[in-house]
């Protein structure tokens, strides 16, 4: 029997103590309002917009659809973990460079989604990119610069790999 008695959540490699009263909240609410990790956003709370996308045990999900209690003992990674202190990840830099950010509300969710996607598919076609981000709504950009950012990031990643190989 596994009643939830552990009192912590593992988020971005850190153990956060949580209160029993939080178990019935959505993980999105807990991350934001309890743990002060405001990077994941709430734009629908229905799994229809992707702005709360996080990694749960290495799987891309919507945090609004995860019950905090059921996330105990699982490895949670949020937007806050994408960039090591002070520097941007490849995809974050690509977003900045491509002009893919306007209001920025959809941005964290997209970045987590794309990071996961490029891990799986390093040289995607345009349609593959669009299908991969079809669960992330953006109202400002029309997705054009976002798709461009993914292209830049995938090229940057494969270029780097090429260089590494050459070094050997």
């Amino acid at each position, binding site marked *: 029997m596994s009643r939830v008695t552990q009192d912590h959540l593992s988020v971005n490699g850190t153990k956060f103590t949580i209160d029993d009263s939080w178990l019935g909240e959505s993980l999105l609410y807990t991350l934001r309002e309890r743990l002060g990790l405001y990077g994941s956003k709430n734009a629908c709370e229905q799994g229809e917009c992707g702005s709360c996308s996080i990694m749960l045990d290495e799987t891309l999900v919507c945090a609004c659809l995860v019950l905090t209690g059921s996330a105990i003992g699982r490895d949670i990674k949020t937007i806050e973990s994408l960039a090591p202190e002070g520097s941007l990840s490849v995809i974050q830099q690509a977003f900045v460079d491509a002009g893919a950010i306007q209001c920025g509300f959809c941005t964290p969710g997209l970045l987590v989604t794309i990071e996961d996607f490029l891990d799986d598919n390093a040289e995607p076609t345009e349609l593959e990119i669009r299908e991969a981000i079809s669960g992330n709504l*953006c109202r400002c950009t029309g997705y054009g610069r976002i798709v461009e950012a993914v292209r830049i990031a995938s090229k940057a990643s494969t270029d780097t790999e090429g260089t590494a190989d050459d070094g050997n």
Partner: protein
Amino acid sequence: MTATETYKIGARSGVGVSSQRPDAVPKATGEFPFSSDLSSHNMLWGKTLRSPYPSARIRNIDYSEALAISGVHAILTASDVPGKNLFGLEHPDQPVLADDIVRYAGEPIALVAAEHPEIAADAISRIHVDFEVLNPLVDAESAVTADPIHPEGNVIRHLLIDYGDPTSSGDVTVEGTYEVGMQDQAFMGTESGMAVPSPDGSVDLYISTQWLHSDQNQIIEALNLPEDMVRLTLAGVGGAFGGREDVSMHVHLCMLALHTGRPVKMIYDRNESFLGHVHRHPAKIWYRHHANKDGLLVKVEGKIILDGGAYASTTSAVLANACCFSTGPYKVDNAQIEGWGVRTNNPPCGAMRGFGNVQTCFAIEAQMDKIASALGIDPVELRLKNALEPGDQIITGQKITGAAPVKEVISSLADHPMPEPAINDLLARPGGTGRTTDQKHVKRGVGFAVSIKNLMFAEGFDDSSEALCEVNDGSVAIHTACVEVGQGFVTLVHQIAEEVLGVSDITVIPADTSIGSAGSTSASRQTWMSGGAVLKACEAVVVNLIEQIAKEEGIKYENLDGTLVSEDGTKTIPIAEALRGRSFQEKVVHRHAPTFPLDEKGQGNAHVSFAFAAHRAVVDVDQELGLVRVVEIATSQDVGRILNPIQAVGQIEGGITQGLGLAVLEELVMKNGVIQNANFTDYLLPTALDTPPIEIASLIEEPEPGAPFGAKGIGEPPTISSTPAVVAAIRDATGLDLRRVPVRPEDIALE
């Protein structure tokens, strides 16, 4: 070209380059604070009780049970509004909290402040309102003569345009009635904010909005407080598109905070957000166009009804736009247009990007295609023949004195190469992963549309924006109340300062009410107005600098492109260097040239400037199932001058996507005054799979006289003719008439 490899983000620099957004990095790391990310020690959560009925009398409100719940700190109703229980963007006709009557489903009735949003929600569900449910007025056409549902009556505005000769006629007439459904701005960051009370009875409001000062004006009336006791600071905004121009939770938050003595935060969930802001006016439009055999338009007759919903918001101005631009970007010597903005028990409607021009453009462009067909003239040719030119008059009698490269906009787009035929990929076909459609079921269609948009406010509105440029020992700070909603004004501020002062490291003081109004972030006006104010404030610093140096050194310098050059030409100092060790404070208010009201015949120089755009849509249609895939949308736009290419492209791509949404996806479905799809499951925004690559054929830079840097506003034109272009393309593929947007599968398949 596709919008593009050529637009590389560079380091921050002057105007005309793709400078990086100063907030790009915090937005990329998730650290950028949106209004929903605010938090305060001792904070309470607010929530709103809303009417489920579109029309009802409130007999009694019993909140005793709710108030008794542990953790509930306050429940407020209409009688708790300290000042005037009325607000409104154009004039106050809407209750802060409904008193004895509710006029739309979603109208706020009571407020709760509690320790946790769940407790607040629980309390809301335990407030018992005794309603006498009434029959709602939901048909806009009958609203004109129906019993008034509001003391101000059901006609918010009735407008006539009587231009030229009403007896004129042409060789052919083409007539049609068109309908536009209710679109929603659906910005991603829902309404949110926090009010923090002070012991002296004042309050600080941190809020997402479009116009801090307009909000402030309405709040102080409702709270019965002087201006200096209600201070607004802009919190991070997650998009707006017109949906934040009206007050939503502003007064509510302040009331709860002042009543409880604690900070109060409120966030609308997506469902409540749909109920909590105004929508685009649904419209019914009849046109009769008269043209001659040679294709020249002779006269346009039109009747327009906009359903303004329960409260006035900006219905009056939206109607004016719809009517004034009823003939589109074309020369017409005669026009008889009649428009009504009416009140019903449907949800209130107001500003949405495009603001009235969207609705009539759909109808106008459909008519133009019909005329082309009736006369056997190519649709693009027809538009070129009738295109407005500088010096022409629009149907309000106003002469176009600025740039109007309409012909160039049209022909540059028409000349743009067509896309490749469809690749044989499931995702490239209508139906996508639904696997409904094989290549043999697909027919391709092309559609073309052109539009005009008036930039900035109209009809004599005294519009202005204030900016402060402050220099302290060479360090530059700029302050405006200009709201950044994502459009990139924050970048422009840096670019302007760098352009004028040569200083790249500036401080932008957060937008708040401690400085004068910047006006609304809407109407494609901020670059012109707030950009203009910043420009002038920086220039004023330079003037001051030159004066100061002249006094000190006795040398008169001239500003040559950011460098001060002495009269004799021997000494030069970059302005940035000259500023070191010096301090200045220049505050300016920037205004545009005056505009005037429309008279009883709809005549008057009511507008500041005009911008033109054209769109070409290519669609693949599976007619048997009525499924549409938009393959490409190409555009040319009249922009005056591009101040930041990558941001311009972003605005254009985003606006076109909203136009696509109205064409085939987005509609708030009403049933007897109640929204049926107030959620993202069923209010369908375009996803990345629905949105095609956007091709920019040409951005035509003909500087606009009177506009700072010659730059025209670019935010709205992309949303206007994109919708009719898509529908025209579907008509081309199917041969169907299609008089309504959004076009639904059944509209195609069952015809």
